[in-house]
Each structure stands twice: as C-alpha cells, then as structure tokens.
C-alpha cells in the first residue's frame, strides 16, 4: 500500500507540473499585462518599451523557465494591479476563503448526510418526497439569486444578519448557507441512491436476520459502505470550495480568493491569476490524495489491493 501511495504522490506532482505548463501557456496566449501597468493614455511606444524591459518579448520557453524557477524559490512575481508581491496579495485572502469553505462544508455535511440517510431509509415515504424535492430545488436555484433573496429577507426585512462583509461571525451565515445548499443537495442525492443500493445487498439482510438494531444496520453496515462513494464527491466539493467561490464571494462582498481571481482576470493581473490557478490545482491534487488515503482507511478492500 505504501507503494500505491508513493505512486499516487508521484502522479500528483506530475499533475501539478502539467498544470503550470497549461496555465502559463494559456495566459501567454491571452496577451501580456503591460497595457495594464501603464495608464490609459500611454502611447504604443511606451508600451513596447516596457514589454521589452520586462522580458515579454523573450521566447516562451525562456519565459516559462524563468517563471518556474522563480516559483520554486517562492517568488511568484509582482501583482501589477496592486504593486505588491503576488503571494502577499493572494495570502491575504486565504483566511476568508478557508473560513467560508469550512463553514459551508459544515452546512453541507449537517444537511446532506442526515437528509440522504433518512431519504434512503424512509424510501418512497412523504418525507422522502419532500427531501428529494428540496434537493432538486437546492440544485436548481442559482446562487446569486438565493444570496440576494436571503439578504433581502434576513438583512433588510428582519435585520438579524448583516448583508455582507467579513466583519463578524454572523456575516458568515448567509454565504455559508448559499454555498452549502447546492453541495448539500448533491450529497443528499448521491448518498440516497448509494444507500438504497447497499440496503438491498444480502449482507444487510444477514445483519437484520442476526437481530441487530435498525440503527446499527443503517449506520454501521450500510452508511459506512455508502460513504466511500460519497467521499469522492465530498473531496471534489472541498477542493472547489477552497478554490473560492466567485459568485457567492461577489454577492456577499466576501474578501476571498474567488473574487480576487475574477478581478485579476479582468485586469490581466497575470502573476496573481497564475498563482491562484496553481494554488487551486495543488489543493485539488492534495485533496484527491487525501481522499485516496481515506479510502484506504475506511475501505479494507482498497487497502488489500
């Protein structure tokens, strides 16, 4: 199994390297940030002179090598928009994004898992129908609409929560729910179908025949086995939440990475875009790796392979 994990780790590193190449190439095709660094009124000569000075006229391989070696030394270049090191600009937003990701993951698990289990166990009941309808609704309602509606209700009408910002813990509630509802709905649906499949397996009948309590059968025998299929989805959700949510962060003025990414794309702030995309890629790869490890922990069959 160690061999398996080392192999996975090696694959992960290759994936990260591949991502740096793709990100670098795509951004290079998109243009260069020189026009941004000069005011609206700069002439073409001034733009060309700066382009030459900063090395944007060098062959692409040389530019990529420079970028990669600097990155390995922790130098991710300057943000042209902020005139500060790109890493500093991004690092400032990490706490906000991580806080929101964890909070919304909490919402996801608190809603998704119980709802999925109940829905499967009480299959075809009224409760199941209600949960399934809500899950469908949760997946259909766009985040920006739900965010604004919640804002109008809880902040403007009832005045129990602040509309936006990062100033207090109460400000976390609406963005976390907005983000969490969609994923919770996905988890509910996934868990429900996987639980139903497992509940029809023979070993469940055996467990029941042994006279075990319904709770033990559901939680210990069915849920634990259903978990491995849901784990992949949870892993994907965690990585995408950690990458920052553009819409939710924008609607709720949450100072996170997603909003920074969009701003930086709009402003052609290359170094920041490169850094964020790479950071996201590393998070994805790392979370996938952790999910693989967790598989081994919860599923002996994987361990034996």
């Amino acid at each position, binding site marked *: 199994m160690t061999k398996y*994990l080392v192999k996975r780790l090696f694959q992960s590193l290759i994936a990260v390297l591949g991502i740096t190449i793709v990100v670098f190439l795509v951004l290079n095709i998109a243009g260069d940030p020189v026009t941004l660094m000069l005011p609206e009124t700069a002439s073409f000569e001034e733009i060309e002179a700066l382009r030459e000075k900063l090395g944007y006229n060098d062959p692409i391989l040389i530019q990529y090598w420079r970028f990669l070696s600097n990155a390995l030394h922790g130098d991710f270049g300057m943000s042209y928009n*902020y005139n500060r090191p790109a890493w500093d600009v991004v690092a400032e937003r990490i706490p906000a994004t991580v806080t929101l990701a964890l909070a919304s993951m909490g919402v996801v698990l608190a809603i998704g898992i119980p709802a999925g289990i109940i829905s499967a166990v009480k299959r075809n009941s009224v409760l199941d129908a209600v949960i399934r309808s809500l899950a469908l609704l949760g997946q259909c309602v766009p985040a920006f609409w739900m965010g604004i509606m919640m804002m109008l209700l809880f902040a403007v009408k009832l005045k129990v929560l602040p509309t936006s910002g990062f100033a207090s813990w109460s400000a976390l509630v609406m963005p976390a729910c907005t983000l969490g509802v969609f994923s919770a709905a996905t988890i509910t649906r996934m868990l429900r179908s996987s639980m139903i499949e497992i509940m029809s397996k023979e070993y469940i009948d055996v467990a029941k025949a042994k006279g075990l309590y319904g709770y033990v059968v559901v939680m210990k025998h069915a849920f634990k086995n259903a978990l491995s299929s849901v784990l992949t989805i949870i892993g994907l959700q965690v990585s995408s939440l950690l990458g920052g949510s553009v819409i939710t962060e924008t609607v709720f003025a949450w100072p996170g990475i997603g909003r920074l990414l969009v701003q930086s794309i709009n402003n052609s702030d290359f170094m920041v875009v490169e850094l964020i995309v790479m950071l996201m890629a590393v998070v994805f790869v790392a979370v996938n790796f952790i999910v693989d490890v967790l598989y081994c922990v919860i599923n002996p069959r994987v361990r034996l392979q």
Partner: protein
Amino acid sequence: MRKRFTATILAVTLAAAGLVGCGTPQSSESTTAAATTAAAAAEAAEGGSESEAAAETEASDGEITITYAQTSDVTSLDPRNATSTISAAMISQVFSTLIRTDADYNLVLDAAESYEVIDDTTYKFTLRKGIKFHDGEELTSEDVKYTLDTIRDENATYSLKSDFSFMYCEPIDDYNLYIKTDEPNSSTLLRLNYIKIIPKHYVEEVGDEEFNLHPIGSGPYKFVSWDTDEAITLEAFDDYFGGRPPVDRLVCKVIPEASARIAALEAGEVDLIGAVTTGQMERLQSLDNIEVVSRPSTRTAYFTMNTFGDSPVTDVRVRKAINMAIDRETIVQGVLDGYAQAVSSLALPIFEGFDDSIPTYEYDPEGAKALLAEAGYPDGFDIEMEGSFSGLSNASDVAQAVAAQLAEVGINVTIVEKDSDTLRDEYQAHTTSPLTFFSFGGPYNDINLITKCVLGTGERYSAWSDQEFEDLLHTMQSTVSGDKQAGYTAMQQYIYDNAPVVPLYQTYSICAYNKDKIAEWNVRTDEMLMGFDVVPVK
C-alpha cells in the same frame, strides 16, 4: 500494516513540509503576512460587534461615522501608483495637493496659497504655512520635489509615470517653489490634482512597501486600517489645514454587487453608495429615507470610425451622415432613462475651452440619406460595429438602438462584442471595425486629453491620423498663457468639419444616500466617490 501506513503518512507530511520550506526567501515573510491577516480578521471580527456597540452609543459620545460603499477595493494607497479612479478617490481624502478640483470640476487651491504663471513652462506656487502631515511634521517644498522626482525617476515604474513625468519641481525656499514642465502643457494645473504630496521623511524612512500599507499624508483624514477587499477606515485629522472635517470616522466598504450595495443601504449598514444602475432607481426612489442623486460626469461614450481601411467611413460625407442619422436624445431617454446627457462633441460643457458656438450634428435622417447618396451609397451599405459593451452600464442596449437607427438610413450594422484587451490590440494594428464603441473619462479628463487619446496619430484609442489635427492639438496643448480659447475653438471646429468620431452621450454618476445620516452631499463630476465632503445630520 497499520504501522507502515502511519509511517507513510508521516513521511508524506514531512516531504510536504520540506517542499514548503524550499521557498525560503519568501516563505517566512509570507507566513507572517498570512498570520497577520488572520489576526487582523479575528480582530475585525471582534471589532464588528464593537462598532455595532459604538453605533448604539453614538448619540451619547457624539462621534459621527459615515460608511460608504465602493464597487472594488483600492489597488494602492501610494499616490504614485494610484491610477484607478477608486484608488485616487480614497487617496484624495488622505493626501493634499497643490491644486485640486472641487465637486463641480473647478480648480481650487489646496496646499498652495497662491500660484502664478511665470512663462509657458513655469508656474510659481506658494505653499500655505504650517501644513502638518499626520505625524506632525510640516509639509514643505522639499516634499513636493521628492514626490515629482520619484515619479520621474528613470528606474522607477510608478503607474503615474507616463502621464505625469513631464513636470518637475524646483524649490525656492521652504514655502515657495517652481513647477516646471519639459514642454508647454496647458493641462498642467489639472494634472497637478493627481500629484498628491507625499512626506519625504516618512517614505525614505519606511520604504515604498510600508508606505503603501500605512500611508501618511496631509489631507483631512488619517489612515487607520485597510482590510483588503473589505474595508478602509479613516479618521478625521485634528490639525488639517482646512479645518477638522465634520465626520469623525469614514469607513469605505467594498461591495461589488449592485443589489448587495442597495440592500446594505436599505439595511442601514452603509450610508452612501455609488454606481447605482438606472434599473434600480425606481426601487430606491420609493424608499422614504433614501435620496438618489445624479450628475453628468467627465465620461463620454462615443464611436470611433476606422479611417485606415477601405470601409465607407473613410469618406467624410459618410461620417457626417452617420453622425446625423443617430437620434441621441431618443437613446438617452429611451435606453438610459434620461440618466445621460446627449452630446455631439468630444468637448464637454464642463471642460475649459468648450465653445457652444461650434455647430453640432442634429438628428436629420433625410439629410443623412442625401449625404450617403452623394457619397455613392444611395442604397446604403453593410458595416460592422464592435465594442466592449460590458464595461459601461446599458452599453449593449445603446449599441442596438444605434444599429436600429442606422438601419433606417440604409446602413445595416452587425454588432460584435469584444473584450477591451482585444480592442486595444486592434487599435494598435488599425484593424478595428468601421464603428467601435468606447468610453473615455476620468478625474483629469479635458479637451486636450480626450482629443489626443481618441483622435491623435498613434494613440491608444485612435483610429484616425491627420496632420492638420496634430498641428491644432500641438497649438492647443502648448498654449499656456495668451489666447488659449482660439486653440480650443479651432480644434472643436476642425472635429466638427471632419467628423472623425461619433460622440453619443455624457454618462451620469448616480449615487444614493441615507437621509437619516447625511444632510447634504453632492455627486462629484470627476467620477470619484468620497465621503469627506459629507454634511452629516447633527
């Protein structure tokens, strides 16, 4: 088995830690930065409840806080890098300048007590005595010199460099100085509005990076804190040379979403918002405690016409016909709900040198058809129109309305949306569509700047090249004393005669405020949203 598993995990963790450790030069610093931010966030979290408490006790201790919302964060607090209007607006509250523009776009003295024009390249300024920076040091000519010298520095790359390095400062004594320019430039005084005087002693001591994060100026407000992408807090400066401002604390929040800004205003979390779109006006106007205010800005929306290709717009008669075929007033009323001013000249009435005796193109579809027939297009022609329509509110609807109006005189328009970077590249390569939608404005826009950038040969937003125009531009720019108006008038007449551009409308800045907190406030012409000129409710 389990032991081996644990060992693997441990090894992986160590390896990961090693990888992180590899980024030595940056990592220790950046970890601190992240930690500081986390601490700041925690502090802010606590501060949130404190400030709510403070708001409740406001009546008792009488401290007045005004909170306003911007659409995005400042990019820099170092005035030498503050090219964006939002950054410039924030900085204008912390720093002072020799001369600045007021809400009506008139030049007024700021740190300077008086000035005189010595010759075409020299201005003499006298500073007010006893101006204090926020750390108590006095502002002198040396600070002005230091500010301009660093912007001009060959090796530095401050954003202000390309537009402002034409001037430099020669101090006479502590309070008297010359501002000189390399060439005569009639925009010098207006540009000085952007030269915020920075404290030489402080910047030299702490360095640029620290200065950007903790700026010290001599303006009405002291910098308190900057929570990136979230809020900036300022505090009234007791020793401000213009007198302590009436609002004790200004908080500028970043709320990018238009609906969220309105919700925050309604919920009483912010007192003043900008960038209100016309679609939201009705709702805001229906609220009792909200006042909606609007005003024409320095921004003009227009079409450039690409005269480099072989399209019909190379013929001046066609260009005139297009100008005559567009009913600007209908567009303003129908598409922009009246929140814009129809214009048919690049020179706006608020600009120095605007001449209202110059004729403009009035809506005349029959005249347009006649001109098209004369130019050899009796049945009209097909033409492409492009633009980055997402950049300006309602621009896409405007483009469609224009296309419909042009269709009525036989010009069939295909609309293509492009992003602004692509458009810039096309301008450089002279490959823009015959009609290209753009807007140009900002806090130091004037006739010199807009005509140069939109029509000057080789300029970034220009699709025209004409030697006679260049000569007129040069005369206009270099006439500092003497008959300035003659140059301005000649330029406006020349643009009218050659019709190289289709001006459409002057945009409006629309803002809204809470009448329970703010007694009086005016929208500024220069698109800058600031709280320092708020008159609070007592």
